């Protein structure tokens, strides 16, 4: 076992550069990290064409299951298979423990923050966060003022993005508190991986994630309006042209709940019904996958046909739970993000377990000057965007692009933040019969109903292009299965 694999190892690692970035598989001197030992041995022991065969069979399985997403900005509704790398990303029990505690702390503080902002706004009165930062946020919803949401849970489903830095520590890059997606890929990746590497999987002792839909359902049920012991729970989708439509159908099917569109819903006397062949059926909980803006044309964007008129009033009346609540985008605004550590301190009197990435607020004179001088070293992001849109990666951008951003920043500084270009970790990916390192992040899915629950792992997203730092599926990223070890 000791001597023979080396030849195959050489083939596998033929051109596998190690530099300052943390490598998930090997330490700085090139030695395999202990958890990866068994994986590397298995890979090295397989004939090269066997790996290819398994890869093809996995691809086929995605194809026939129709696991696709839609890329915007190209032809209308271009459906693509979500690219998928066969090698699992491993996380040890100790690492996971820290992540879990960190995310639990974070979502607790963020929910307290939203509760506070939409009621007394003590945190603003105490000048921990500047008021104008909150009230200038485009995701702040004044309609939510004074509204009591069930169990004070504003964010029931979050998908925070974590990165691992050179020192091996995880940091939070952003909190996705509106309608985070990708969980269906986490679940289908696992299903395919179990079929692709059955022995390896069982020898590793991987913590299960398959019960996520059940936990999500329990979370939604826990948030039902009072007096509705058998709540009718539905998933509200924008429809077949949405990029995450596959995920909506997947989750609805896995939870055994109805997948509805805005046009299926009607409201009467502040009660929401869905139109069925059996007549109108009352709806108690809506797991909302439609953005705030499009949810109710009477309250938000009047030109939206995706929502349901009267939904918000029914919500205000407490006759229906809609989750995530409206206005949660306030707390994942990239400028508000910079204050999350201070929120944790303020509400919980604890130090953050998972640190933030250093963030420059461009509305601050001093920060702005520094950023404009160092645009070629920094990443600039529009505060209200997600999915990798509206972003400048300084070191990789052209001079012209940087100038465009500089102008945009000067015109509307509140709309941007800057962060150092992060040298985040890379994990081995299979290209042909070779391994090559690619940048990865980690998006665990956090549920908050009667308590916080996080399935171990999450979606590891991969920047499949060599050297690329962008992992978003809408920008050519792929994914990996994530194994949290016992």
């Amino acid at each position, binding site marked *: 076992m000791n001597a023979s694999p080396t030849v195959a190892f050489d083939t596998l690692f033929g051109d596998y550069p190690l530099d300052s970035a943390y490598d998930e598989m090997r330490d700085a001197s090139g030695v395999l990290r202990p958890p990866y030992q068994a994986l590397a041995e298995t890979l090295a022991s397989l004939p090269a064409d066997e790996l290819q065969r398994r890869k093809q069979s996995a691809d086929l399985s995605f194809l026939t299951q129709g696991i696709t997403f839609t890329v915007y900005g190209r032809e209308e509704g271009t459906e693509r298979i979500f690219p998928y790398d066969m090698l699992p990303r491993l996380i040890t029990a100790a690492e996971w423990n820290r992540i879990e505690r960190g995310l639990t702390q974070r979502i607790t503080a963020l929910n307290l923050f939203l509760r506070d902002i939409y009621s007394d706004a003590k945190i603003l009165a105490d000048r921990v966060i500047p008021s104008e930062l909150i009230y200038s946020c485009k995701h702040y919803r004044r309609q939510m003022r004074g509204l009591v949401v069930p169990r004070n849970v504003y964010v029931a489903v979050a998908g925070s993005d974590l990165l691992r830095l050179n020192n091996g520590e995880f940091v939070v890059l952003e909190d996705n508190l509106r309608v985070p997606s990708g969980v269906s890929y986490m679940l289908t990746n696992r299903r395919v991986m179990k079929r692709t590497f059955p022995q390896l999987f069982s020898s590793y002792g991987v913590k299960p994630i398959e019960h996520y839909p059940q936990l999500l359902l329990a979370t939604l049920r826990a948030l039902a309006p009072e007096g509705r012991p058998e709540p009718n729970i539905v998933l509200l989708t924008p429809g077949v042209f949405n990029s995450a439509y596959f995920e909506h159908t997947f989750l609805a099917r896995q939870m055994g709940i109805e997948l509805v569109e805005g046009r299926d819903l009607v409201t009467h006397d502040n009660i929401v019904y869905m139109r*069925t062949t059996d007549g109108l059926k009352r709806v108690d909980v809506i797991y909302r996958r439609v953005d705030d803006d499009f949810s109710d044309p009477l309250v938000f964007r009047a030109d939206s046909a995706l929502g349901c008129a009267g939904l918000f009033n029914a919500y205000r009346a407490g006759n229906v739970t809609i989750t995530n609540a409206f206005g949660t985008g306030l707390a994942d605004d990239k400028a508000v993000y910079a204050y999350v550590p201070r929120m944790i301190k303020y509400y919980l009197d604890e130090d953050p377990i998972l640190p933030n990435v250093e963030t420059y607020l461009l509305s601050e004179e001093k920060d702005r000057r520094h950023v404009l001088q160092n645009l070629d070293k920094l990443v600039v992001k529009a505060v209200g965007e997600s999915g990798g849109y509206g972003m400048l990666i300084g070191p990789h951008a052209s001079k012209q692009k940087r100038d465009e951003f500089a102008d945009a920043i000067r015109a509307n500084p509140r709309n941007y933040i800057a962060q150092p270009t992060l040298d985040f970790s890379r994990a081995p990916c299979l290209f042909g019969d070779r391994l090559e390192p690619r940048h990865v992040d980690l998006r665990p899915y956090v549920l908050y109903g009667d308590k916080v629950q996080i399935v171990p792992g999450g979606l590891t997203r991969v920047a499949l292009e060599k050297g690329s730092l962008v992992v978003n599926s809408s920008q050519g990223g792929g994914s990996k299965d994530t194994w949290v070890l016992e």
Partner: protein
Amino acid sequence: MLSRVADSLYWMSRYLERAENTARQLDVTMSLMLDTGGVSVASRWEHLVAALGKPTGLVRVEDSDQMTHNMVFDPLNPASIIYCLNGARENARQAREEISTEQWQRLNRLYHQIHSPNAQSQFEISVSDTLASVLDGIHLFQGVGGSTMIHGQGWQFIRLGRHLERAYATATLLEASVPDLASAQDRANSAYQYLDLVGILRGCTAFEAYCQVYTADVVPDQILEFLLLNHDFPHSIRYSVDNIRYAIEAIQRHGGRRAPELAAGVGKLHAMIEYSSIREILTGDAAAFLHTIREQCLRIHEHIYRNYVQYSIQSALTV
């Protein structure tokens, strides 16, 4: 079941039935055109257009090859095979949760097959092969549906759509063929006339079934009797109307809203067929009788909409 989803299943099914009908009528027309005994190509096309109910958007072009092509591939012609298959797939996509994966894959395959460049080249070589493979695909879809889909409300909406579309299409075909049937009565029994009559039967996949019941003695009155009143043949109007009735009963049994007007509408159509003899129909105005059937079908469609899909909130709240 969500009204929108029921509506999608219903239309998916109607579109597939419509595609099947077009494929069959086109196939019969093409083969009749090979025998040039007295009937011009132009009037064959006229007859086809009439048999498909003269839908607006079906443009009659002079060039026969172009016309054939349009009936298969013109996405703007509402009777064309491609138009109907597009409609079926779009509706299936809306109801993806209700149909089985096998059904979805079948339909997807059929859809990609007609859209592939291969379909065009196959068509150039043999129109009838193209039509046969479309029919095969639709039959496979129906077979797979029968054995893999749960036979609940959704299934009944599929059944309802199929048989309503079929009853309407058969009535339309027969109404358009009444003059031919009448003239065949007068003419001496010629080989050409025989081909025409067999064409009507083949347009309903009924030739072999007819022969089993009446022998190969092809007589206009018997054709009408068979396609209108036969109890057991799946393309007879009576059979379809019975299925419409069963489907609606089953929908209500599965919890569907009570729909007295719909029941009355179906009852009326059923009674009209149940208590008419072929003698009465033939001595009266057969075309008018068939036309009434079509109107009843349209009314039933409206009632389905009013009761299950677009009912008013007030009506639903008071129940």
